[in-house]
């Protein structure tokens, strides 16, 4: 055998798994199809600016020394010191709905106080829900799948509070429309409300260079532009991979972060989809995730007048987390202002807005010719839309932009332009003081971009609603890790890579190999 293990994908899970295997002298290679590492959380340069693909916040923030938490577990497994991550906490975040706002930060008591203030009759239910969450062991990979909505409704009666609590958790990690699996809800509740948000001064680049440096130091091999075309099996056992170039790499183990449906196709060809030979999980009609997103990044010359770090908003009191009928749903989303972390050095002010998007509609648009750049509308500069005072959050501004008729939007570029303008209009000033006159530069990506760069089908950032919690695929030696093992986000995906490498490669070798 050429390698003990081949890892598909140099995202957070692939790099973390690679570190674990290289640390114990396994012959390991990480194969990445793109020309840069990072996957869904990578980085790029745009008009001279260094931008992050995804990073809003690292979840799971706990201070150094907090015991038994995902972040501390991750640090130990990768043998990093807390301070090496260079994490700086959020100021606070908001859940902003038409009829109520809840503020939270990295101290859970403050969220509890907000619930008591805004929903006094629900506080006992909220406390009971919290106790049930604390008592639940989300690391039990064999726990039955149950609906989080059902559990939450046993404790919370007001649908507004229920939806407000779900909103950030869904945006940051639900592959399922409208509902979440209870175990996933618990993971997200702890990582966002009970632990918290932070970011390194230098953003995701910092995390990625820590990981890639450690991996290389340990002798791990990383190959870019090395897309896997096929996973090779013999008698239902993985024996290696074939690259796009035709090169064959033999290995005892294949760990894939490409996604469940995608990995299935790498084994079984196009037919793979819908005929999951990969066993052990209840089949779902369509395993491809339905939730994709657009994200717009506005680089500003002056920050909007708010200290909030992240705002999870909905312009409807009933929060709709589902694939929209139109290109995007601009009436709910996430607004992130990275400059509002407590950073030691100032950074360029940005407003990032994430909206749920319809993959099929975006991919059906004509590419058009030329650039697909988003322009800053000239009236933003001249019409004196000067920073207004923030609304009280009660009402949506009456002069709402009309939602565009997407059938008339004929090219991809025009659609991007349209939706950029609408997504900005839909958040100001109800959730954020108007910042339009301060925009210097705009970039935007769509579901199409996500699939192009990461290979995730349907632009599904959170993967398939079907997860392989143990990583098993029904094929010996082939393991799913990352998003479709059920742990996502930067910390979650990295922990997934670690635990799958431990469980399926390292443990096996301590158990079976004789001493050298």
């Amino acid at each position, binding site marked *: 055998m050429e390698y003990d293990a081949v890892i598909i994908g140099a995202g957070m899970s692939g790099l973390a798994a690679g570190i674990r295997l290289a640390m*114990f*002298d396994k012959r390991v290679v990480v194969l990445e199809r793109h020309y840069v590492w990072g996957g869904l959380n990578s980085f790029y340069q745009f008009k001279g600016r260094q931008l992050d693909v995804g990073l809003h916040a690292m979840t799971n923030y706990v201070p*150094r*020394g907090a*015991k*038994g938490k995902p972040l*501390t*577990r991750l*640090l*130990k*497994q990768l*043998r*990093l*010191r*807390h301070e090496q991550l260079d994490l700086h906490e959020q100021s606070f975040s908001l859940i902003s709905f038409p009829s109520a706002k809840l503020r939270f930060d990295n101290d859970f008591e403050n969220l509890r106080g907000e619930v008591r203030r805004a929903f006094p009759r629900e506080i006992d239910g909220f406390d009971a829900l919290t106790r049930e969450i604390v008592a639940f062991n989300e690391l039990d990979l064999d726990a039955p799948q149950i609906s989080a909505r059902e559990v939450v409704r046993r404790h919370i009666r007001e649908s507004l509070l229920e939806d407000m609590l779900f909103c950030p958790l869904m945006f940051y990690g639900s592959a399922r429309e409208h509902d979440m699996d209870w175990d996933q809800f618990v993971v997200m509740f702890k990582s966002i409300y009970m632990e918290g948000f932070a970011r390194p001064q230098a953003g995701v680049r910092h995390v990625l260079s820590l990981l890639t440096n450690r991996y290389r130091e340990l002798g791990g091999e990383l190959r870019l532009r090395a897309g896997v075309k096929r996973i090779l099996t013999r008698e239902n056992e993985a024996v290696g991979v074939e690259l796009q170039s035709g090169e064959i790499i033999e290995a005892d183990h294949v760990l894939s972060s490409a996604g469940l449906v995608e990995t299935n196709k790498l084994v079984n060809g196009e037919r793979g989809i819908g005929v999951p030979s990969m066993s052990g999980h209840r089949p779902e009609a369509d395993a491809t995730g339905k939730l994709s997103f657009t994200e717009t990044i506005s680089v500003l010359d002056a920050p909007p007048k708010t200290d909030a770090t992240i705002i999870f908003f909905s312009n409807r009191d009933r929060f709709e987390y589902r694939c929209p009928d139109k290109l995007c749903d601009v009436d709910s989303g996430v607004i992130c202002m990275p400059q509002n972390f407590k950073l030691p050095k100032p950074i360029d002010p940005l407003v990032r807005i994430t909206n749920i998007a319809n993959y099929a509609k975006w991919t059906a648009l004509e590419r058009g010719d030329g650039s697909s750049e988003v322009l800053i509308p000239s009236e933003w500069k001249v019409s004196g839309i000067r920073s207004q005072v923030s609304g009280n959050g009660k009402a949506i501004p009456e002069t709402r932009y009309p939602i565009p008729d997407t059938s008339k939007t004929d090219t991809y570029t025009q659609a991007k332009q349209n939706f950029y303008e609408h997504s900005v209009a839909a958040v100001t000033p109800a959730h954020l003081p108007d910042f339009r006159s301060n925009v210097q530069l705009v970039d935007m990506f769509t579901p199409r971009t996500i699939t192009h760069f990461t290979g995730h089908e349907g632009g599904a950032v959170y993967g398939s609603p079907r997860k392989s919690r143990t990583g098993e695929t029904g094929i010996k030696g082939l393991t799913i890790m990352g998003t479709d093992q059920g742990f996502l986000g930067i910390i979650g995906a990295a922990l997934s890579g*670690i*635990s799958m490498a*431990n469980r399926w490669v*390292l*443990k096996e070798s*301590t*158990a079976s190999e*004789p*001493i*050298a």
Partner: protein
Amino acid sequence: MNDAEIKQAIIDIISDIAPDEDTSNLKPDVRLREQMDLDSMDFLDIVMELRKRYGVNVPDTDYMQLATLDSCVNYLRGKLVSKTAKV
């Protein structure tokens, strides 16, 4: 290796695994888990490091023997040969 060296070898491994922990004042007769944030994943690392550094294999059934520094020393006495000595 003598007992003091074995103890130091274990402390070195723990300091590498958990760089945020203070390992300078560990009590030899108190369970390591009670003195530090170590979970089963970390014990797997201790076992793998013992194998990597000293060629000693600790089967699953003997993990309990690694509960305290004293019990580590007892269990590993005679088993640890330092890499330099081996060469």
